[in-house]
């Protein structure tokens, strides 16, 4: 009788021009161990990753966490009862609070995760970057949280223009003056609600790091990347691995200061003097994480190993100068799969 393969559930199967990281995580896991049974967890019947039949056999739709924790938990329990989940890797910012709440229940069912603690999760929030900077020694641009237009009108005393006006989860609009900022403020509030984060613009080049923390202050691995091409939404469409010791030092500082457990993406600006300024920490793998596997440091697989309590054996080095270049392709999908996703929210192939 053959041994049961590892069952890993991965969320975030949207793969449009602003893709979720799920498909990239799945590809990295497949590269490392093709025997892993991947269980895709999507939110929409047309999430493109659902139809990537060469990557994922079983897919289930989840209710949005905003519909309530009970429905979300009940669906996860159902998936577990059907297939058995060994490890779950959430990849979306907005679902992480739900997974943090459910972590004890998941553990009780034997489902392993690699999540930060609530305290770690909160510390890296956009509105707390100054606190994080002070704790870690990482440079952070002037940043503040505003809840009202009155606060916004005074904030330039501490956060000078030009500034970015950001939602708590997503989006950033550059404002040169109060008029721009007011317009952006209302847009963010309409989409994401309050609070709104404002951050002084740092001129320079953007760099990103995907990193994995062991939860004890150690950096399991990190890959630095410079975007080479952006979409009109400012998302990386092509990028290249880089290695500047000062860049990777930021990842180490972040891990030491927060004892971060799990994956994250660190977004930085490099000014003309070569100093790195922390813009944002995303508490999950980025959509470009397959580059880490392509460059020889498979961080998603290391995360799965860590979640199982194993010591990842991925080394520390990666190939500098490895590129990713995204492509849009039309997948041919079966109507049976689509109808199953629409009617029952699940498919097994």
């Amino acid at each position, binding site marked *: 009788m053959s041994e049961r393969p590892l069952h890993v559930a991965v969320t975030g199967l949207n793969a449009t021009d602003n893709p979720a990281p799920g498909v990239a995580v799945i590809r990295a896991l497949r590269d490392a161990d093709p025997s892993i049974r991947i269980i895709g967890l999507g939110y929409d019947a047309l999430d493109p990753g659902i139809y990537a039949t060469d990557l994922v056999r079983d897919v289930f739709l989840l209710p949005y966490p905003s519909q309530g924790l009970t429905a979300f938990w009940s669906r996860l329990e159902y998936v577990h009862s059907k297939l058995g989940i060994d490890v779950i890797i959430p990849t979306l910012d907005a679902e992480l609070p739900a997974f943090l709440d459910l972590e004890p229940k998941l553990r009780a069912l034997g489902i392993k995760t690699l999540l930060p603690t609530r305290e770690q999760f909160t510390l890296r929030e956009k509105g707390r970057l100054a606190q994080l900077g002070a704790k870690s020694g990482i440079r952070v641009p002037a940043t503040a949280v505003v809840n009202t237009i009155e606060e916004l009108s005074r904030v330039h005393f501490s956060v000078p223009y030009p500034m970015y006006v950001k939602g708590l989860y997503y989006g950033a609009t550059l404002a040169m003056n109060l008029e721009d900022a007011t317009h952006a403020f209302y847009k963010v509030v309409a989409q994401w609600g309050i609070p709104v984060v404002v951050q002084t613009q740092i001129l320079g080049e953007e760099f990103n790091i995907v990193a994995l923390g062991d939860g004890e202050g150690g950096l399991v691995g990190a890959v630095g990347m410079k975007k*080479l091409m952006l979409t009109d939404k400012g998302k990386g469409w092509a990028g290249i691995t880089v*290695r*500047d010791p000062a860049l990777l030092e930021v990842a180490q500082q972040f891990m030491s200061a927060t004892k971060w457990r799990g994956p994250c993406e660190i977004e930085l600006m490099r000014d*003309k003097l070569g100093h790195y300024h922390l813009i944002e920490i995303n508490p999950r793998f980025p959509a470009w994480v397959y580059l880490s596997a392509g460059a020889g440091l498979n961080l998603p697989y290391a995360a799965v190993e860590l979640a199982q309590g194993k010591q990842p054996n991925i080394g520390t080095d990666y190939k500098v100068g490895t590129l990713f270049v995204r492509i849009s392709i039309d997948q041919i999908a079966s109507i049976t799969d689509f109808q199953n996703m629409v009617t029952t929210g699940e498919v097994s192939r």
Partner: protein
Amino acid sequence: MSSATHLKDLALSDTGFVFDPYTGATFTTNATGLAILQALREGLGRSAIIDRLRERFDVHGDLESDITEFYQLLRQHGVVPPNFTGTEK
């Protein structure tokens, strides 16, 4: 990081493609530019580089200003520090 280390770590191809592993920047340069970069990696100073260019290429006139302009491009792209003059041995 010293400019010598930075220059040594540049990936130079024979076709003139240059990749800076620290910044991810890529450039293309002609054969003369490539020869200057290789000479800088060897630690040659400005006059030695000029001698080498005269040896390898059919050049006439003032090379000083061409080299000054090339160094300016290197500074502009962060390949060498802002105070780099290329006179060190």
